[in-house]
Every structure is written in structure tokens, then in C-alpha cells.
């Protein structure tokens, strides 16, 4: 019995808690992606670069002397503006074509290529550091966890709840869901669909940027960081259901826990293929994911 308790405390406990911290970060990334797909039917291949944008903005602001907590508010706002204009100026243009899915995917793919090189141009190829605002570690039931990660779990959960509230409990959210369900009907009911689309895209970008700021002290900042989470974020979105917030949360937690615990048994190199395998399985067997689409369930 004590063996099991010991195993729980020293082996599984830490893995689960670590997985939780990582999971919250991944969910924030995936949330933006799933909202953008759920409403706009746009696969944002540049989502990773939005994440990087947030981190780099934080680097610049902190270097200019801005308080880290203020950055958490400023960066998403700036990123949202960038996203809004990107949507109106670039994505809207290919929106009405028949090959919309493919074209938007390609378009955002092209933007991602440009963004990565622009980051390198402005900030140089070497990594940057954002000091963690909360130092030290605490012990929780005998498990050591850095304080900043505990903050991450808490803040991340708060943000997820806030997003859910906005989408399901506000009139803006209702408009968004209506437009996702049936664009034309919503328009004929007076919903300003174009502006709602651009705002939603901006919102998704802001979420990614926010996770960039939150994770910068943990994962450091460098030009190719956009590729860090991409496969995992897409897997979470697909397994959870494109456009479903509940699904993204559920899938995010489950997949990161699977990754965390599997690293105890198999070589860590296989954790990415494992997640990918689960994604493929879902695509073959249950393509709507765990929870279905935004506006549909």
C-alpha cells in the first residue's frame, strides 16, 4: 500500500502536475485555433507565429521597462489589432472563393513563412529571456513545483473560464455562435457578419499571443518558436472537435496527461507520434472529435 502511495507521490504525482501545467498552456493555444476554425472555417497555419508574436512583444515591452503584469494586458490588445487587420486585409480576400479552405490554409502558411523571418530580422537569431515574475518553488504534498507554474495553472484556468463565459454568456458570443451556425441567416437578422468574423479572428490571435506571453518565462523566445506547439495544438483541436471549447479543454488535458505519463514508459521521442496517432484515429473513426463544432453543440 505504501509502495503505491510512494509511487503516486514521487512518480505519478509530479508527472500529472507537470502535465497539467503544460496542458493549460496548450489549451490556451488550441482555444484560439479552434475558435478561428469553428467560426471562420479558416485553418490558421500562422497560429504558431501569433504565439511567437506575443512572446516577442513581451520581450520588447519588458526591455522597455514595462511591468510584466501590464504586458499580460497590453500584448493581447496589440496582437488583436494585428489580427483584425490581417483578417480584413488579407484573409477576407480569399474568403469568397470556392476553394476557401485550401486558399486560407495556403495564405496563412505564406504569412507564417514571412513572420518567422521578420522576427529574425528584428530580434536576431539568438534566444531572448523574459524573467519569470514569480520566483521560487513550493512543495505540494511532497511534490516540488515552481510557483510560476502554479500561477500558470491558475491563470490559465481563469482565462479558459472567461473565454467560455464570453462565448456562451454574452451577446457578442451569441452573435459569434449564430454566425458560425448560419452566416447568411445571421446576417439577415442584423448581425454584422464581416466585423464579427474579423473580431473573432482577432480574438483567436490574441489568445495565442497571450499564451506566448505567459509561456515566455518558461520556454524562452526565439524565431522558430512558432513551430513548438503547432502539431500538438492541431491535435488537440481535432481530437476535441473543431470549434468546440469544451472539446479543446478536454482534449488538451487528456493529451498532455497521456504525453506526460507515457514518457515514463516509452522513450520521449515517441510522445509526439503517440499524440499524432490518437489524432489520426479520431480522424478515421470520429472526425467530429469529442465534442462537435462551435454553434452546433
Amino acid at each position, binding site marked *: 500500500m505504501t509502495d503505491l502511495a510512494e509511487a503516486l507521490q514521487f512518480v505519478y504525482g509530479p508527472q500529472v502536475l507537470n502535465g497539467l501545467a503544460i496542458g493549460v498552456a496548450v489549451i490556451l493555444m488550441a482555444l484560439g485555433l479552434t475558435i478561428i*476554425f469553428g467560426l471562420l472555417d479558416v*485553418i490558421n497555419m500562422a497560429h504558431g507565429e501569433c504565439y511567437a508574436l506575443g512572446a516577442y512583444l513581451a520581450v520588447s515591452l519588458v526591455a522597455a521597462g514595462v511591468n510584466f503584469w501590464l504586458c499580460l494586458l497590453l500584448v493581447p490588445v496589440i496582437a488583436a489589432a494585428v489580427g483584425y487587420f490581417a483578417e480584413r486585409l*488579407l484573409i477576407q*480576400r*480569399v474568403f469568397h*472563393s470556392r*476553394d476557401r*479552405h*485550401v*486558399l486560407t*490554409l*495556403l*495564405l496563412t*502558411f*505564406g*504569412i*507564417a*513563412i*514571412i513572420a*518567422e*523571418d*521578420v522576427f529574425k*530580422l528584428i530580434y536576431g537569431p539568438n534566444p531572448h529571456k523574459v524573467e519569470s515574475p514569480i520566483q521560487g518553488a513550493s512543495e505540494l504534498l511532497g511534490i516540488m513545483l515552481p510557483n510560476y507554474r502554479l500561477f500558470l495553472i491558475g491563470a490559465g484556468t481563469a482565462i479558459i473560464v472567461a473565454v467560455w463565459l464570453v462565448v456562451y454568456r454574452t451577446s457578442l458570443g451569441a452573435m459569434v455562435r449564430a454566425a458560425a451556425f448560419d452566416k447568411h441567416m445571421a446576417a439577415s437578422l442584423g448581425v454584422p457578419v464581416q466585423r464579427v468574423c474579423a473580431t473573432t479572428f482577432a480574438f483567436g490571435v490574441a489568445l495565442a499571443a497571450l499564451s506566448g506571453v505567459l509561456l515566455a518565462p518558461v520556454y524562452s523566445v526565439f524565431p522558430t518558436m512558432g513551430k513548438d506547439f503547432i*502539431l500538438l495544438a*492541431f*491535435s488537440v483541436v*481535432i481530437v476535441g472537435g473543431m470549434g468546440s471549447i469544451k472539446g479543446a479543454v478536454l482534449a488538451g488535458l487528456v493529451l498532455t496527461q497521456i504525453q506526460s505519463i507515457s514518457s515514463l514508459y516509452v522513450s520521449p*521521442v515517441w510522445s*509526439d*507520434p503517440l499524440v*499524432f496517432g490518437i*489524432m*489520426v484515429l479520431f*480522424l*478515421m473513426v470520429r*472526425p467530429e472529435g469529442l465534442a462537435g463544432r462551435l454553434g452546433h453543440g
Partner: protein
Amino acid sequence: MDDLETRPQRILAAAFLVFALAFAAFGAMAGDTFFLRLATEALILAGLAMAVDVLLGYTGLLSLGHALFFGLGAYVSALALKHWAPSFWGALGATLAAATLLGSVAGFISIRARGVYFALITFGLAQVVYKAVYNTRELGGSDGILGIPEIQINFGLFTAPAASPAGFFLVVLAFVMLMYLALAYLMRTPFGRALLAIRTNEPRVPFLGYDSSRAKLIAFIIAADAAALAGALYPMLRGFVSPDLLAFQASGNALIMVILGGVGTLVGSLYGAVILTALKSVLGTWTEHHLILIGALFVVSVIFLPKGFAGYVLPRIGRFLGRRA
């Protein structure tokens, strides 16, 4: 209807062939090596681009991981040439067999999904295999396989040495043009028409009596074979293979070639490959920020010229012909 569509394509393809032959003549006279080999590489990549176009332009399936088959072809060919026999036909044969097998398996997994899901599966598959090859010592790991012998290609009546820049260029040119003709012909058969139907409106296809899943799977295997055969030529040209031939960058480049050249035209991929290879070579020397320029060109192309180079030129050729008729 047939004439208006195919004659401009044939003219564009013939023009490509003529330019290529002139280039080869120039190059041979000048004793050049680099530009001929660069052009040969462009042709090899054109083969990959055509495979992507078969899936994207004709079947409506976006493959984000087609470099998987290209790299597979390169590795199988490299292993065959180095360890089995330095034979051109042997390497191609081994590649065809491996690609058909793997293409069937991968196709079976991927075909269930449509649209963006298909794209993500192919992306993921390519990533997984890339990492696996990168970490496998027996396949050279991150260093790849070096020391591929320079072979002699036996055509029965004469042999062409792969080491000769102009000679190998002509061999690859012939190979790629034959591939183009075969694929173009295939797209005009009822099977090819079924693919176009699938691209336009898949749910209706079964009502016309076609099994869309089977058609898609066959198209996938064909695209896999084409990409692999193109890849098989790479080690003969450069004497080595590396896991980077499987990386996402290679798939992404193929996609850019198809879009720039003109999706759904097959001949566009030939031009797209040449345009991108030339651009990368020239821009790369000029500035280290070439990726911004190529990315910007790609974005502009997607927004303003979604039909690409061929898409722009072909209707004009058609109109010119129409005026003459």
C-alpha cells in the same frame, strides 16, 4: 471542349520542352556543370510538384506531407544503388515497389478524411517518418547516406553517364516529360474525369456510379509513385540523401511550386518548379532574407493570382488559338 482545354496545355508543355533542350545545348557548349545540375534538380522537384498537383488540382486533396514519398523514393534508390547494384532501372523498380506499398497503406489511413483533415494527416505522417529516419542510425541518421556511386544508365542501344551534367539533364528531362504525358493522359480518361468530379462535388459522385473512395485511393497511390520516382533520381544527381528530403520544408516548397505554376494544370507545376528553384538560387545569394520575399510572393500569388502562371497564360493561348480558328 476537349480541344480548347488540351491544346493550350500541349503548347505550353511543348514550349517548356523546347526551352529545356535549348538550355541543354547552351550548357553543353559552355561546358557548364552548375546550372545544368541546378536545372536537373528543378526538374526532379517538378516531378514532386506534379504529384502534388494530381492530388490538389484534380482530386481536391491538399497533401501537406508529400515529401514523405519523395524522400522515401530517394532513400530506397540510394540504398539500392549503394548496397544492391548501381543500376538505374533497378533503383527505379525498387522505388516503385516500395512507393506503391507505402502509398497504399498511407492512402488507406488518409483517405477517410477530407479537406483540412486530410492535410493534417499527411502533415503528421510526414513528420513522424521524418523524425524516425532522422533518428535511425542504419539509415545514416541526421547525416543521411553518402557515397552513392555515379552510375551509367543503360538504354540498350547506348549508355548515358549520370556524371555528365548535360547527359543526365536530358535523361531526367525525358523522364519528367514522360511522367507529364502519362499523368496528363490519365487526367483525360474517365478515371481522371471522376477525380475532377470528386474535387467539384464529392457527395454526388456515387450517384454517377463511381466509387469515390477507391478513386481517391488510386489517385493517392499514383501521386505517391510519381513523387517517389522523382525522388529516386535525386541521389543519382547529388550522390547523397539526407532526412531533409522528408522535412516539411520540402513539402511546403512543392506546394509553393504548384501554386505559383498553376494548380490543376499539371504543366504549371513544371514552370512553378523552375521559377521557384531559380528564385531561391538568385535571391539566396542576394540577401539572407530571401524567405520574406518568397513568402510575400506566395501570399500575393494566393490572393491575386490564385490560378498561377499557367492559369494566367493558358486562357490567353486559348483565345489566341480561338481567334485563329
